[in-house]
């Protein structure tokens, strides 16, 4: 079994050989480590993408908008992902960001996962029919359970989920009431000597 450290180093070096700048390669190294740690096929997708990149052109998306549509070539997942990561704070007010045609979108995913941590919001990433709920870069819930290469996602959406409770007020109160059964009623004499005792509101 390869260690995550080996995975990171080899991915970084391979990215350099594929023509990316060192700073971008550092991002790719971290990302592939992250994918493999989450049990997603990072090495497999990166390998295939770099192989494809030798024969095919991809577009570098430098400025992220609410809707992004490639002009001639599919988007490079690495440059698109880096731009998203860098610009996520200024995109924070949007409800949804849409992309058309990202190549090898699993390589885009770790950027989105890291973006979730930066803005402190869960992000729901849809790659066509595959869904990924990215929880602050701590874990990923997904219906994608295959160890496969995704060559392209025609429609990619990122929904920025507001920080809301997953339960109703009624459910909360029910649980809170149960938790109250661990409390002890204080006697009057204890109340009199508690913090602030002896002071008057006019002190």
């Amino acid at each position, binding site marked *: 079994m390869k*260690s995550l450290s*080996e995975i990171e180093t080899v991915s970084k070096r391979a990215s350099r050989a594929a023509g990316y*700048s*060192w*700073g971008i390669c*550092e991002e790719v190294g971290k990302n592939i480590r992250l994918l493999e740690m989450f049990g997603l096929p990072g090495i497999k997708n990166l390998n295939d993408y770099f192989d494809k990149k030798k024969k095919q052109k991809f577009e570098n998306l*430098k400025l992220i908008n609410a809707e992004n549509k490639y002009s001639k070539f599919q988007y490079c997942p690495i440059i698109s992902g880096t731009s998203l*990561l860098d610009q996520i704070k*200024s995109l924070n007010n949007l409800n949804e960001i849409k992309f058309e045609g990202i190549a090898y979108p699993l390589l885009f995913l770790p950027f989105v996962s890291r973006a979730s941590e930066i803005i402190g919001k869960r992000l729901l990433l849809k790659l066509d029919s595959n869904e990924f709920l990215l929880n602050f870069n701590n874990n990923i819930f997904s219906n994608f359970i295959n160890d496969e290469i995704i060559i392209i996602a025609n429609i990619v959406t990122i929904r920025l989920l507001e920080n809301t409770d997953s339960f109703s007020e009624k459910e909360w109160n029910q649980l809170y009431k149960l938790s109250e059964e661990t409390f002890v009623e204080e006697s009057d004499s204890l109340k009199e000597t508690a913090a602030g005792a002896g002071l008057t509101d006019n002190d």
Partner: protein
Amino acid sequence: MEIELRNPNIIMKLSRLGSFHQSKLSFLRSFLKEFKDWEYKRDLFELNESGYGTAVYSLKKDSRVYSLICFANELKENERSDRVIATKWDAAFTLYDGVPTKQDIERLRVEVPQQEIGRLSYKELTLSRANKSVRIFDHVVENLSKGKQPDIELLSKVGYLYRTTAVYGSGKFGLADRFRIKNRKEIYGPFRLEMMLVYFVRQFTFDQVNHIAKHKNPRKAVTLDLNISRNLGIGNSTGLGMAPFIVNHPILLNNWILARETALKNIRKIKFVETKDSDLFKTCLKKSIKNITSWNTNSEFQQKKIQSLFNDLNKFIQFIESDFYFSGEFPFNNIYLWIEENLGEECIEYIVSIMMEPYDDIVNPLINQMSAEEEKYFNIPTHRTVAELKQILEKNYSEMLKINFSKKENNQKFWFISKNKEEPRMSDRFKEKGSELEQPLAIARDVNKLYETLSRSKNSSTIDMFLANNDDLRHVVRRAFVAEKLPYSEIQDNIIGHSFIPIDMLRLKLSFFGVLKFDPRSDKWLRINMFQGAPLPDELKNHKDQWIYNSLN
């Protein structure tokens, strides 16, 4: 009294960093201190009469066990090489997390002797190999088998029976990733498990010579005297591979230097020094002279440094014995101001190290802060502005910004990864091929380029927009934001310049390891000795922290 931390623009120059010496903060000393109350055992020792076979040693506390597995193999004379490109060694070692089963040992018997081309697993923590110093090893075996102790003078010239040529950890070749073990309290300090491996290897070398001598002459053989054993360490040949590490780990570098600087600052702030503490300082200082006078090297570069250290140290001892009183206020601050004024860098840093000796209460809490959570600093704060980044460069990289990279000599060298052994190497970009595959270690040059580009950009632009057009500078933008928070994270020098000496970088790292007697064999590699004078495993429980000054050699 307010004492500032020392200025990174001075301390982080290579000439200063290359003058650092071991101290109480050093990893091999802090390792011994941490494992003082662990139970040591030799669990297995199955060697044949020639000393080939398997041995297992362990340290145990509560439910935690670390086991060193040693494989000693026969090596032909013409197969023995200390170079990193060697493929066979006298012995190979791995540190196992727990108690290895027979199946583990059999698996590792195949993999460990292969080193870089073998595959380890997450159960193994570190990996190493070592070669005999044949002349010394044979001399010791020969004498012990005749019932005599070896010639101490001969031993002192070398100082070890074996030397390692590499010690690997942190996920290399399938070893356990750091994240699996980083929360264990006993390994908070850096390189703890690498130190443990080397320490065990040292004991194996003693057990092996005793074993061979006994089999050679069962009736007459004696065991190696414990005093002699204690004064033998483990040698190591260290080359360029170690140098880029400190550039590639700026957060770790900062934490090491910051610990040292914080210790110095707090010692200078002590208003009144107790007599027992000033006595310990003076004792260590005087005892340490033996470590300088027995420092053997053929390197002219190092000989000059040793001579200047020796002269300065005598000057200093004369000063504290005739012109200085510890009874005044802030004596260590006064000492520091005097040494900065009167002594060279080598001796200043030597005395700084020794100042720490009396102060466990200052030094010990700093030891656990010398590891690094590098992930925390990885994301670039892209909402910051061009103007802010420019200010960071002006403040934290002022020395680098003075270097003129249009001059050929400032751009002479480049760092690359060698194809045959995947090791960092350095070459001349105007004479050798391959500079297009340069590693991103030319920080001074890239910081200059970043500064020029920022100067042409709009001050109010945010870094996300700057990076969208300048992704070739991304690696150095990341570093600059690290340096803003961690002032000792960058070497304030040009490591691709014509006059750059890699030995300074190696010495910096090795001083933190706790190494004595650096012996440069060229400007690109050196020999060192680890654990010379250290307590033996059976003596760990009651050992004194100042053992490093007790060497007989």
